């Protein structure tokens, strides 16, 4: 019963977050300079006749509050509306771009976490100071390099020069490698630093001494004992990773000519294509809710102490 109530509270909070996100985005677009009619007209001809038709077509003469409530009602019914710019249902626009972005995001996040784990475990403690210095220098470089540059560098060497990978598009696993690596490198850089820091601190703990005194080998100490401790702060970065991945797709998809939500977001924001922006914001908020819930569950998995309380 208690578990059920906890789940219900979780879902309720999630819905609240979605509503707040959608409303905030709506208000932000409303407050942004320029009106919707101007944005639909773009740099084309602008005459009173044209304006009148656009206003009639999209119902823009209704008060903002009415449009907002209408939007919410339709959202609840699963209708995301039509894109001003693309003249298609938003659910189509987003639906067809969701999978490529999801594939990229999962591959990048997975690769990033894996790389971070390997690097952190390999360089924690004071066993190989030169390796540690090299790796933390590289991490800093990766975290501070824009992914645009990483992507172009990877492309020019691995695709243009040596032709290991195709330059663009969603053409099977080969085309996923470079974009995923581009996105994964900064994630790996930061996560590795957090993880190593955690490992370093765990190694100084008395329980590590105990484990060592029992004759557990160094690798066992790191992987079985210290890593669990180090993972906690890393897990709390899951939301950050999600944000990096979603934000990164905007640039990576542009550089690699990959289909995906990133391109949709970019053109929708640039053109203030309200229905698409709102849908993307709501969807991202839903993503955050899911990722953070998963992170909370992961705490329980990683730390048995939390399960008891």
């Amino acid at each position, binding site marked *: 019963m208690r578990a059920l109530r906890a789940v219900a509270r979780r879902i309720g909070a999630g819905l609240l977050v979605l509503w707040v996100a959608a409303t905030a985005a709506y208000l932000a677009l409303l407050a*942004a*300079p*320029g*009106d919707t009619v*101007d*944005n639909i*007209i*773009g*740099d*084309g*001809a*602008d*005459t009173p*006749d*044209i304006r009148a*038709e*656009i206003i*009639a*077509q999209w119902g823009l003469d209704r008060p903002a509050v009415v449009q907002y409530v209408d939007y919410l009602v339709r959202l609840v019914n699963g209708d995301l509306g039509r894109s001003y*710019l*693309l*003249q*298609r*249902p938003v659910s*189509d*626009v987003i639906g*067809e*771009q969701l999978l*490529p972005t999801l594939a990229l995001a999962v591959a990048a996040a997975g690769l990033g976490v894996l790389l971070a784990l390997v690097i952190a475990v390999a360089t924690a403690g004071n066993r190989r100071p030169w390796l540690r210095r090299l790796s933390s220098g590289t991490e800093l470089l990766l975290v501070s390099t*824009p992914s*645009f*540059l990483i992507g*172009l*560098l990877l*492309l*020019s*060497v691995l*695709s*243009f*020069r040596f*032709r290991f990978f*195709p*330059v*663009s*598009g*969603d053409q099977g696993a080969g085309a996923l490698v470079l974009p995923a690596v581009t996105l994964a490198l900064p994630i790996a850089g930061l996560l590795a630093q957090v993880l190593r820091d955690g490992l370093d601190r765990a190694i100084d703990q008395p329980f590590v001494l105990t484990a060592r005194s029992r004759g557990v080998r160094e690798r066992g100490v790191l992987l079985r004992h210290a890593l669990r401790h180090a993972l906690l702060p890393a897990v709390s970065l899951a939301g950050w990773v999600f944000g990096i991945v979603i934000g990164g797709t905007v640039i990576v*998809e*542009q*550089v*690699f*000519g*990959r*289909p*995906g939500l990133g*391109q*949709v977001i970019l*053109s929708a924001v*640039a*053109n*203030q294509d309200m229905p698409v922006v709102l849908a993307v914001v709501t969807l991202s908020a839903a993503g955050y809710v899911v990722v953070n819930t998963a992170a909370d569950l992961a705490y329980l998995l990683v730390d048995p102490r939390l399960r008891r309380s």
Partner: protein
Amino acid sequence: MPANRLRTLAAAALAPLLAVAAGCANAAGPAGEAAGQPRSGGSLTWAVETEPITLNPHQYAQAKARLLVWNTFESLLTYDKQGKLVPWLATGWQTAPDGLSYTLTLRDGVTFSDGTPLDAAAVRANIDKLREPGYAPAVAAVQLRNLKAVEVVDPRTVRLTLTTPDVLILDFLASPQGAQVSPKSLRAAKNLKAGGVDVAGTGPFVLDRYVPGQELHYRRNPGYDWAPPTATHTGPAYLDEITYRFLKESAVRVGALTSSQVQLVEGVPATDQPLVTGNASLRLSRELNSGSAYSYYFNSSHAPFDDLRVRQAFREAVDVDTVLRSVYRDTATRAWSVISPSSPLYDKSLEGGYGGDAGEANTLLDQAGWTARDADGFRVKDGRRLTVRLVQSAPFVRDRRDVLAQAVQAAVKQSAGIDLKVSLVDQGTANEAFARNEYEVFDNSRADTDAGAALNLLLHSKGGINRARVNDPRIDQLLQTGQATGDPAKRAGIYAELQQRVVAEQALVLPLYAPADQIAASTSVGGVRFEPTAGVPASAYDLWIGK
């Protein structure tokens, strides 16, 4: 926008690296048509910069999408190299002596790719659809403004009657918006305004796959046999298939070309051109666009540009050649008029008539009362600095026009003490500045095939993009006469007078450069060409792959 600056930096940092990656450069000899004789078959991949917002030609608004439109859709008329209208899906047209009606005869045996025949009823269905409320408001309000009725005389003859003489109706019939869409698609397509595989046309290719964000794929229309006289062959297209891949970054497009992952690219900026010209297996071609030149329009509705002398001074303060060279090296063609030099309406006599005289600029500003200077070296009058604002809407900035603006900014400051404030903003902010009349400079170029159509929007007091806020009865009258005059020589005379008025006498604009398109292609590809008059890359109809 920081992202933009970032991109410029990254491009600069990467140029040498890419040059290495592109492989050893060869001394390029004249390439000629290295692809040999035309032959049928094969497939090509073409990397394009812009993913079209819509695939429905009636909704066309991006010059960069024009090469895609003509693969699947065709118009009743088209332009030849000299800017003369020639028949396409129509076999000819007759103008009534009073200029109030046009009778078109249609070609026999033309069918849409869904099997529907093209007849007078289909043409009428297209125009009716364009005039339907909410479907294509910009076309209905501008291009079809003077259209009274469409009449099906017989299955092969259609007559358009006008409310007032308007030669631009012929330009409409040659434009993408005037392209013929199957009436069946007009009734039944799922997302008609967005277009897609279910919107059928009469063109040499059929769109069979669209992956948004990635590519468009076309296959040959085997029954095609109605090529326009401007094409270099007849019958079906040479290629079996063609794929257009969207690669927005020019460095990536050129890299994909040098590594043979694509065979053609369009949009090659000055910084990337050496990679193409230095490679013997690639060829670069470029062509000037039609329409209006890229110009700065001076907002003459308020100070300081309500004073002719200040407008003239701004123009004299910019050494356009130097500015263009610093931004585009030697790849840009200077414009002298508001009309592109490739247009038959261009007035050549304006060349060399003004500009680049800093001494003159300073004299003019002194005369206009901007005599004092403030601590930053800018001119001042009545305690106010000589500041003019240029607002650029980021989504529409291309050809590094933001960088060009910085070069102009430096030039006018240095030579005349004018403070040009450039802001690169989102579209909403730009629109707001325009609506509130809080700008002094407006930048624009339009790729209309008939420059008159562009000028109607830009310079007429009631024009849809009259951001210069021109309100000159003489200019209005010239524009209206030009639109109503069918005789080409007379028409050119009217537009020459107009250009003299706008550019020479009133100094309402500072023409900067004539926009151009570039195609870089592998030498194994034959038939690479530009659309006559429009000056944008042509459709894939004449392309072939050499042995």
